[in-house]
C-alpha cells in the first residue's frame, strides 16, 4: 500500500513538472506571455524564502534579536555587492549561527 501511494505521489510531482513541456499541448506563448513568465523565477523563490525569515509556525516574527532577520539582511547586502552564492551563504550563515548561540534566541 505504501509503495502504491509513493508511486501515485511520484506521478503527481512528475506531472506538475512535465505537463507544460509536452509539445502537442495546444498552448502557444506569445511575447507578452513570455515576458509575464520571465518574472516567475525571482517571484517564486522569494515567495519561498520570505516566510522562512519573517514567520514561525504561521506567526509573524519581527524582532530586533531575530537571527533570521539579521542573517537575511547580511545575506541581501552580500548578494548585492558580491553576487557570490558562497560568500552570501557564509556571511548570512555566520551571522545567523552567532546570533543563535550568543543571543539565546
Amino acid at each position, binding site marked *: 500500500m505504501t509503495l502504491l501511494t509513493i508511486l501515485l505521489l511520484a506521478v503527481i510531482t512528475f506531472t506538475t513538472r512535465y505537463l507544460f513541456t509536452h509539445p502537442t499541448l495546444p498552448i502557444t506563448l506569445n511575447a507578452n506571455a513570455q515576458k509575464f513568465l520571465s518574472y516567475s523565477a525571482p517571484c517564486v523563490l522569494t515567495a519561498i524564502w*520570505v516566510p*522562512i525569515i519573517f514567520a514561525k509556525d504561521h506567526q509573524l516574527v519581527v524582532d530586533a534579536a531575530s537571527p*533570521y532577520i539579521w542573517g537575511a539582511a547580511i545575506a541581501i547586502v552580500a548578494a548585492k555587492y558580491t553576487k557570490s552564492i558562497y560568500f552570501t551563504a557564509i556571511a548570512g550563515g555566520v551571522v545567523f549561527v552567532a546570533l543563535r548561540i550568543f543571543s539565546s534566541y
Partner: protein
Amino acid sequence: MSLAIKTTEQRALKLAIIKGAVDLMPLNLAVLPWGVLVGSLAIQQGFSVFEAQLMSALVYAGAAQLVAIELMSNNASILTLIATIFVISSRHFLYGLTLRNKLKLLPAKTRIATAFVLTDELFAYSGHKRAYMTKVRIYYGLSAGFSFYIAWNCWTFIGIVAGSFLPDLTQMGLDFAIAVTFIALVIPSIKSVSILIAVLSSAITALVLHLYSVELELIIAAFVGMSAGYLSKGLDNTSSNKDFDHKGSDDKCCENTGIDSKGSDCKDIAKEASL
C-alpha cells in the same frame, strides 16, 4: 577535420557537465539538512528503508515529501494526500510553462529527463535566454539537475541510516540554509525596476498569505508578483530591459541569476558549442 570538431565538441560537453554540477554545488549542500530530515522522518514514522529511499528517488520533492510522510503516518485519506501534494507541487506547472518554448523542442527522452529533475533549484539556473537550446546547454541543465538529484538521494540515505541518532532537526533553524541560498539567487537577478516591484509584491503577498495559512500561498504570491512586474515593465528603461531578458547579456553565463561564476568557462562553452 571532422575528428577535430568532434573532439572539440566532446570537450565542450565535458565542460558543460562539470560546470552544471559545480554551479549547483552550493544548493546541493544547502539541502543537506532537508534530505537528512526527510530520510530520518520517514524511518521514524515507520517507512521501510526501501520505501524511504524510493520516495526520494521517485517523488523527488522537498516540502511535498515531508508533508506526505506526516500525512501517511497519520493515516490521512488518499484524497487529502493527493490534494495536498498537488497544491504543494503546483508551482512546478509555472516552471514547465516558463520553459515550454525551449523544452518542447527537445527530443522526448531529454525532455522527460529534464522535466523529472525540474526543481526550484534547477529552474533558478534555467533562465538564460538560450538555456536548453544548444546541445551544450542541454548537457549543462541535465548535469545540474541530476547532480542535485544525486545529492538529495545521498542526503536522504544518510538520514535513513543515521536518523535515530540525530537530534530533532526541525528545531535547529536549518531552514535558514534554504532561505539564504534563495536570497543569493534572487538579489543579483534584480536588475530592473519591474523585477524589484515583482519581487517585493511577491514577498509581501507570500508573507501575508502564509500568516493566514492560505494553502496556495506560493502560486498566488508568484502570480501577484509576476503581474506587478509585468504591469510595471514600462518603468524599465530600454537598456535594463535588454539586460532583463533573462538577465543574460549573451555570453555572460549559463543561468538567469546574474551570478557570473566562471563566466569565461561559459563563454568558451558557448563558443565551442556553436562549432
